[in-house]
Structures are given as structure tokens and as C-alpha cells.
């Protein structure tokens, strides 16, 4: 049971229930759709850039608590960041979920609130839920019009 509470941290439950930056962004200049065929999670990420800074970012769609909270926390984390900084955050986030524990010792501090997803490590099938929003963000930036999937 403790594992389950590690996974469903208070912050995650809060963002699942009240996702931030939720809904379309009318003046978005980049957007992409992400899909996790395993469980049917489907979300859209909308971006508005100013030069190489992410001026605004929104998401909408449906998904499990992990994917929704991850998308919500991601929008908070990358808003106002440069593209390079956002990319670095994703790298750190990815390592947190899948990397060698000894290498990522310092990662949580840099990740700020995103560190609440550390518990996902113990649930390998749920890693895709946590990374879906980030993959979709990448696709939006790359201008991929095709839907990205986690498979």
C-alpha cells in the first residue's frame, strides 16, 4: 500500500482533480496531439512561443491521473522557460522515471515539483502515462502534425 501512496502523491491527485492551464489556447502557434493506445489516454498540447521562450502552454484531453497530472505540472514547469531549458527538464524528468538511480541523485532538486513523479519508477507500465505530455510537447515544437503515440 505504501507504494500506492508513493505513486499517487497529494500533488498529483490535486493536479488530476484541478488541472492547471487546461483547455485550448486560442492563439497557439504550435500544437500536437498525443495518444497512449494502451489505455486510451489522449491529450493535446498547445504552445505559444516568443522567440525561443515558451510564453504560454495549455493542454486538454482525457487520461488517467498520472498522465493528466503530469501534463498539468509540465505546463507549469515549462512556462517562461527557453526551449533548451524545457528540453533539459524533460531529460531530467525522463531520468527520474527510468534512469539509473545512482546517476540521477541530484536530479530531483533541479526538477522542482516534477520530482513528485519519482514513485512512478516502481510502476514501469505507468511510465508512458507520465511521459505522454512531454512527448506531445516535443512533437508540437518539432511541428509534427502527425499524432504521437507512446507505442
Amino acid at each position, binding site marked *: 500500500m505504501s507504494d*500506492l501512496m508513493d505513486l499517487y502523491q497529494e500533488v498529483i491527485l490535486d493536479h488530476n482533480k484541478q488541472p492547471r492551464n487546461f483547455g485550448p489556447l486560442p492563439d497557439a502557434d504550435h500544437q500536437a496531439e498525443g495518444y497512449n493506445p494502451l489505455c*486510451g489516454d489522449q491529450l493535446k498540447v498547445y504552445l505559444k512561443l516568443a522567440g525561443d521562450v515558451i510564453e504560454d502552454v495549455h493542454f486538454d484531453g482525457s487520461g488517467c491521473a498520472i498522465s493528466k497530472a503530469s501534463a498539468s505540472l509540465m505546463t507549469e514547469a515549462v512556462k517562461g522557460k527557453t526551449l533548451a531549458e524545457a528540453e533539459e527538464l524533460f531529460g531530467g524528468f525522463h531520468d527520474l522515471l527510468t534512469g539509473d538511480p545512482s546517476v540521477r541523485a541530484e536530479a530531483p532538486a533541479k526538477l522542482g515539483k516534477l520530482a513528485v513523479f519519482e514513485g512512478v519508477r516502481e510502476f514501469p507500465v505507468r511510465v508512458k502515462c507520465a511521459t505522454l505530455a512531454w512527448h506531445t510537447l516535443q512533437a508540437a515544437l518539432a511541428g509534427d502534425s502527425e499524432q504521437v503515440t507512446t507505442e
Partner: protein
Amino acid sequence: MTDALAKNHADAATAFDVDSIRRDFPAMQLKVYGKPLAYLDNAATSQKPESVIEAEAHWYRESCANVHRGVHALSVKATAAYESARQKLAGFINAANTREIVFVRGTTDAINLVAGSFARNRLDPGDEIVISGLEHHSNIVPWQLLCEERGAKLRVARLDDRGDVDMDEYARLLSERTRMVALSHISNALGTINPIERMIELAHERDIPVLVDGAQAAPHKKIDVQALGCEFYAFSSHKMFGPTGVGALYGRLDLLSEMPPYQGGGEMIRTVSFDKTEYAEPPARFEAGTPNIAGAVGFGAAVDYLLKVGLDRIEAYEDELLAYATERLLKVPDLRLIGTARRKAAVLSFVVGDVHAHDVGTILDQEGVAIRTGHHCAQPVMERYGVPATSRASLAFYNTREEVDRLVAGLGRIREVFGG
């Protein structure tokens, strides 16, 4: 149900010794996270009794040789084992002739075979194939591919709110353009038991051939293809307590005899020269390459096991377990059952409040309760009910009331985690 029938059902259910049955299945002794496994994902695949595991292992130890081509003793033994499995399957579904059983990889393979070798030749541009809104992707996509290739149209009979096929619409869809009907006997996503006899009858009134996807029915019901009168019946070993990677297609012999091969290769020929190849008679014509011999032998052992337990007793026990599980689940706060058809097999698809199925699955898994979450390879069914995914508990005759209780207790934990 009449009183007498109800009483029969009840008698069969009480006479059912589930403890002894559970001892036949090694997986029933497994633990996950230190808790006994409650395996409620039988519509995805079933666990295997010791006799099936042993039959396959025994074949590898003592009968392993290729079939139909050796003069040596071991090959003769292997061929006998393989053909005896075919005979068991023919008996199991009451086929008129053993040659009407084609070994395939599974239900999906069987449906693709019929689409490619039977329906393709009957389909002109503008013709139609009729399926139902209940179908598994494997009984949708092969027909879609074929329709695309031939410029034909796929017509779908809708579901009502309970998860029954709208029979008026189904009857209306059958027309002089319909060349094929393909229907599931039992829905994997909702558990609906289709009134398949009537549906076949309606198609036959217009001389339309029918394929029945029996993947979910064969493990739970007595199947009689002659009584059903369908042209094709497809089913998989792994859903009926046999090995993975093997299944059977029943096809009426006169039709199989007229059909061109599905794949080319060894085993399916009579003579080969560079100018011309003559094909073997069915079923060999459709079994190119070395088949899954060990799998077929295990499949035969699974049939033996099912017959030993008795399909009538299995059905009665599962009906009783379904009624119990339905009653318990309906008392879970915020739980909505998806699929409440008039006749149902032991499949319970549900959503809990606004908690996503995937989260439900993870929470139950921690309790040792294995269910399926997602779209169950039936996305159109999910769309029909406006949900992206459901949680699904699917029961088999080795499941118990106590396991259903653990499912319900596990669902109680959702509130602990998510509040509400």
C-alpha cells in the same frame, strides 16, 4: 428461465467443486505482492491446467517430429497426436467432418483467412459486409481492409443502451448487396451474448454466409456448429485454457473445398512444378508450413479438460458467479456497469466515478487482483458509451465468490486514494 431450468442451474452450481478445479491450475497458487493472485482477466487469456502444460511438454519430450511427411516412427507418432487433436476439436464443436477443422494461429488468423480466401472472391465494388457494433478489432479490421481493396462497404448494426445489437437495424442492413456477415458470439468488452441463432437465420434467409467469432464463447458455452448452421466459426486455444499461438477455424467442407489457399508453402500442396502447383484438399490447403504441432496437441488436451469438467456445469457455475458479482458491483458507490445485455457471459465492464480505468487497474493490482483496463481492442464499443476506457473483470470457472469479494474490497481502496 423456467423454474425447472433455474433449479437445474442451481444444482449444477452447487455440485461444482471449485477448490478441486483450482488445484488443477498452477497459476491459481501464484502470489503477487505477497497476496494470492485473483486472476479476473480471462477474456484476455485464460490460465492453463496442469494437463495442458503436461500434454505439450510430453509431446516435446516423446513425440517431437514434423507431421505428415516422415516415414520414421516419431513422425508417425507426431502426426497421430496432431490429427487426434483435430478430431477432438471437431467433436467439441460438433463438426460433421474432421476435415472442417483448420488449425490457425488464433481467431484473428481465422478471420483473416476467411476474408482473404472466401469473402474476397465474392466481393464486387458496391457490395457490402455486415458486422455488429460489438465487434473486437479483429472482426472489424480484416473486413475493412478487404472492403478498401474491393471498393465494398462495411455496414455496422448499432448497439442499444444495454449493449444488445439492435436487431431491427441488423435485419434492415441485410440486403441484396450483402455478401458476408461477421458477428461475435459473445462480446469480449461487454459480455453480451448475441442471439446468434436468430442472426444466422436472418442472414440465411437472404443466402448470406456467416462467420461467427467464437473466441469468447468457446470457453464458456457448448458450441454446436451444425445446429447453428453458420458457414464459419473461429476460436482460439488460449482463451479456452489451452496454449497460445494456436486456434481453429471451422468451415463447411463444401466451402473450404472451393476456396483458394490462404498462404503458399509446404504442407498445402499436392504437386509442385515451376509451371503449376496443385493444392492439397482442406484442411491441409490452409495449413502452409510446419504448424504449431505442440500447440495443437495442448489445444486437444484443453478440450479434454473442458469436457471432463462439463460445459453445462461450467456455464451454470459462471452464470451464478456473474449474478453474484453483478449484485456486489452494483452496490459499489459511483460504479457504472457498461453492458447490461439481456443475456450475458461473465464479463463485467465498468467505470468508477471519474477515476480513469488505468488508475483503477493499478490500485487493484496492488491488491493482487488482476483485471483488464483500457479499450479491450473494441474502441467503437467504448465510443458508443462515451468512455475512453473501462475496467473489466472477466470470470472463468476457477474463479470464486471470495475473489469477487476481493475485487469489491479493492475498489473500496479507490476512495482511500482518490478521496470522494
